[in-house]
């Protein structure tokens, strides 16, 4: 194991989910290349991977940017299976996209069969405060209900863009460490899990 990490940095697989047009690709491109793409072009499925420093440790992030459109709903299962962490994006200017997060969350939990999967609820387009339709409280309440963090971002101004990716990767890393431990010593996994849950949240 130790040998492997020295050769190849740890790879964290992140999947961007959310309705069409909420800014999944915009967030991804802003994070990857510091650019903001104005024109809207529906994504099919995009892959990105790069090396970054996470708390001084070199890791690789693999981002799968999925299609938000309803047409592709059936094939999402395939994608979700490979994800280690999820950014569930909605637009604070569109209530429908916020309601859709419920569906995404359920699908992910079903596919991963794990309610502790690293997951962040992200309200994008927070630069458009004047067009806000989803209140901070509403979103925060939903995140609390799920037991996940809620962050508001703006792909346009790059506000909190790095934060959501880094926060998610930290959760994935913590989760992987925990899994290693549980696989090593199965005896006391239940307690461990509960404790760790508190730390994450």
């Amino acid at each position, binding site marked *: 194991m130790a040998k492997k990490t020295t050769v190849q940095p740890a790879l964290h697989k992140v999947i961007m989910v959310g309705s069409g047009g909420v800014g999944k*690709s915009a967030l991804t*491109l802003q994070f*990857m*290349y510091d*650019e903001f793409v104005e024109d809207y072009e529906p*994504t*099919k*499925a*995009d*892959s*990105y*991977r*790069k090396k970054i420093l996470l708390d001084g440790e070199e890791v*690789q992030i*693999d981002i*799968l*940017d999925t299609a938000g459109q309803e047409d*592709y709903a*059936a*094939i999402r299962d*395939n994608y979700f*299976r*490979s994800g280690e962490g999820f950014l569930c994006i909605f637009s604070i200017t569109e209530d429908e996209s916020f309601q859709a997060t419920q569906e995404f969350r359920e699908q992910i939990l079903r596919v991963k069969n794990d309610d502790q999967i690293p997951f962040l609820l992200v309200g994008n387009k927070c630069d458009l405060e004047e067009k806000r339709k989803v209140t901070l409280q509403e979103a925060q309440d939903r995140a609390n209900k799920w037991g996940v963090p809620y962050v508001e971002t703006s792909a346009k101004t790059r506000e909190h863009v790095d934060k959501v990716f880094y926060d998610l990767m930290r959760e994935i890393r913590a989760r992987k460490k925990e899994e290693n431990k549980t696989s090593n010593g199965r005896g006391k996994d239940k307690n461990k899990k509960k404790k760790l849950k508190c730390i994450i949240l």
Partner: protein
Amino acid sequence: MGPPPIVTGLSPNEGPPGTRIKIRGENLGKSPQDLVGLTICGVDSLLTAEWKSENKIIAISGPIKGKGDIIVTTRSGGVGSCNVTFKGYHIATIGPMKESAVWVEETELFTWGRHSLSPSSYQQEDPLGLSVEDAEKKIPEDDLLQFYPTRNGDITSNDFSAGWFLLENHQTTSFNDLHAGLVHLRRKVQGQKEGQLSFLKANIGAVMDQIDTLVNLKDRYEADLPKLGHEPTLKLEKAIKESEHEARKLFDEVLNRKDRAEKTRNALNVLTRFRFLFCLPCVIDRNIKKGDYDIVINDYIRVKNLFHKTDIPIFKAALNEIEKRITDLQTKLHQDLQNMPITVEQQKRLIRYLVNLESPFDAAWDAIKARSEYISKKFGLIHNYHKSLEKPDSKSKSGSASKYSKYNKSPNTEITIIPACVNFTDEICLSITETFPDLWKIGQSYFSGELQVKIEAGRQTEYKHMVMNVIETYCKYVRGSLIPNTLDKTERAQYGTLTLPERDEMALYLPELLHSVRSAYSTFIKLDLPSEALDLVNLVLLDLRIHCMSIMFQQTTEQIKQLTENWKINYTGKFTGVTELPLKFLNLIEDMMKAVKESVLSIEQREISLLENQMAQKEMEKQMNNMLIAFHNVLNNLSSSEDYDECENGTPVVSQLIGTPVSSHKTSSKSNIPIWEHRLLIILSNCLFTKITVLDMLVTKFKENGFPPLQTSLSSAKIKLEQLEKSILDKYLEQKSDPLVGTIEPSMYLGRFDWHLSIPPNDIRPYVKECINNLINVHSEIIHISPTLLNAVLPQVVETVAEELYRLMSCAQRFSREGAVQARADIIALQEFLEGYSTEKAQHYFKEAIEVVPPLDRTDEIIVEDILRQCRARMKIQVMCLRKA
């Protein structure tokens, strides 16, 4: 060698052949030419690659299947690496029943490549002959790759793995079906082995036909051999060569002609260029005349570019000619630039021309200088013009002015001739608001570099000096024309030669002029001038405002001085015996205050309140004082002038027992001016009214209009009024009591009466009645004018009567018994009747008088009582008159 390219992002990450892929990464080449290689899953796709930036390339995937890297190769970075993988796949068919993870560009699918890649060839028939619906749950390719490393499921591949294939395509197929598939496959393989022979058998007819045709062809060829020889193509070759030669001949001519045409064209070009050079002087002249300087400049720059290095004398000569024209033009433009008046825009355009013409002039600076000079010149012109106007004007004025004495001229007199200094100030304000902004604007654009001129060092201070100079001159002119006393002698000689009109006239115009100066000031403020310059104007404004205020005060003082009394008593209100005079005075001041408040006290932009200025306060105090003194003087003059008495000297002063009462009631019927005593009373009551009410009203009015309280001048006015009051009272008393008192003695001794005679007394003596009647007369007079004065005046009169009585009694040498009784009765009667208005002093005099009379015995006292009783009854009405209400 730079860093190697690396691909970090793909959009999308899978797709059929023909998918447009956005490839993102780092160092993907510095330019389209730098990108020298691009493979997608091992298939070279450089042809379709579209280089967007160092981070982005767009390419179209080729005929690929399976996962692979995208490798970018650049000249600068060499062969690159890839972080992400692309997955190519072939889609069997896209139908309504089939779902696809990507958007399928069906058009591209059908047009891609040639026949070999037509859709039908994608459709791989299942080798087991089973209909394969796309499996619901496919095993991910990654997992398969783990199971069968280095193998794949492509049946055409060398690395084909049957296990992979079955897992991929027949995961859900039942064993029986698989078995049937195996049988099918075997049969097919068997069929292929027997294939060649059965093919011939089936097509024997066609094969035979082909052989026959070949034989026929051979026969024909051999038959033709003797006719055409062994080399039938030789002839043909010759013919082709010949035709080629002919064609060449044809085209040579055309080509030659084309060459010639080109040469001619070149020659023409050169000629036009020269023509341009030689005609340019004329063209320049024409365009200058038309004013198309832009064209001239354009031509000039062109000709300079074309010919400036020429050594050919004739060209040089032509160039010289052009240069001369241009120099002339420059001088002309430069003159135009300085020829005022001209708008800033025009100036800017001219400056641009001159800069473009590379003129030796410092055009922008000259323009600024010209403007500044123009302004001072215009000031001078306006000044001289008004000075010249003034001379004949003042002559006619002096003639007319003599007609009016300074005091008789009412402020309403129509003044048709506006004084020169007013016109001048107005015009100079207008002039500076028109001209100065331009100077400032062009200066700003000069220093901001908008004019594209090099700014020489020291210009900034020089310009500032210039601006300050203009402002200063303006200020001095304004001062000189309106308030010359604020300038020193030499400056006054330079700026203030216009005569000032009289005060009243000035007061009419000053607020208006103040407005003009203020509007000029606000223009300066809008231009955002440095505060140094603004302060200069502000100071002038301040002085002007103080002056204006002072003039307005003075004017009001003058008007107060001219106030006259109409002697009409106003009986309404709390104060009686008051005429309109004090109210007029109050109104005048009030009007003045309003005017001052409107024009002078109001604070405009960047001005300080006059009330905070000490000088202004002092001036205001002084002027207020003057005003109050003026009113005091008016009252004083009225009380001391008896000039219109001559017409009514017949008015009775007191009724007299001796001599004939002279024209007792010949009141002045011709004029409504009351008699002197009445007038005194009226003035007195006015005085009181002013002191008590009007001054208080003034204080409130001051407060209302935002003036300072001006306490000292008001209190001094109060004291003065009090003094005046006293002197008027004295005068009145003198007027009244002297004759009254004077009648007592002669009346007392009337009919040779003397105190030592023994005439039995049966009534009080007539002089007592007369005295009482006279007092009633005075009383009625005062009541008529102003009852409020009664207490101030009547007791004084009574006092003098008592004093006179005492004097007369003490002068009597001897009293007979009857005389003593008479005297006592007289004195007590007087004392009783006048009790209501007796002061302590008067009482004292009465007592003294009684003491002088010898004491009486009991019977005499009864006689006195008797007389008094009778007297009281008889003179009941008189007693009632003198009783206090």
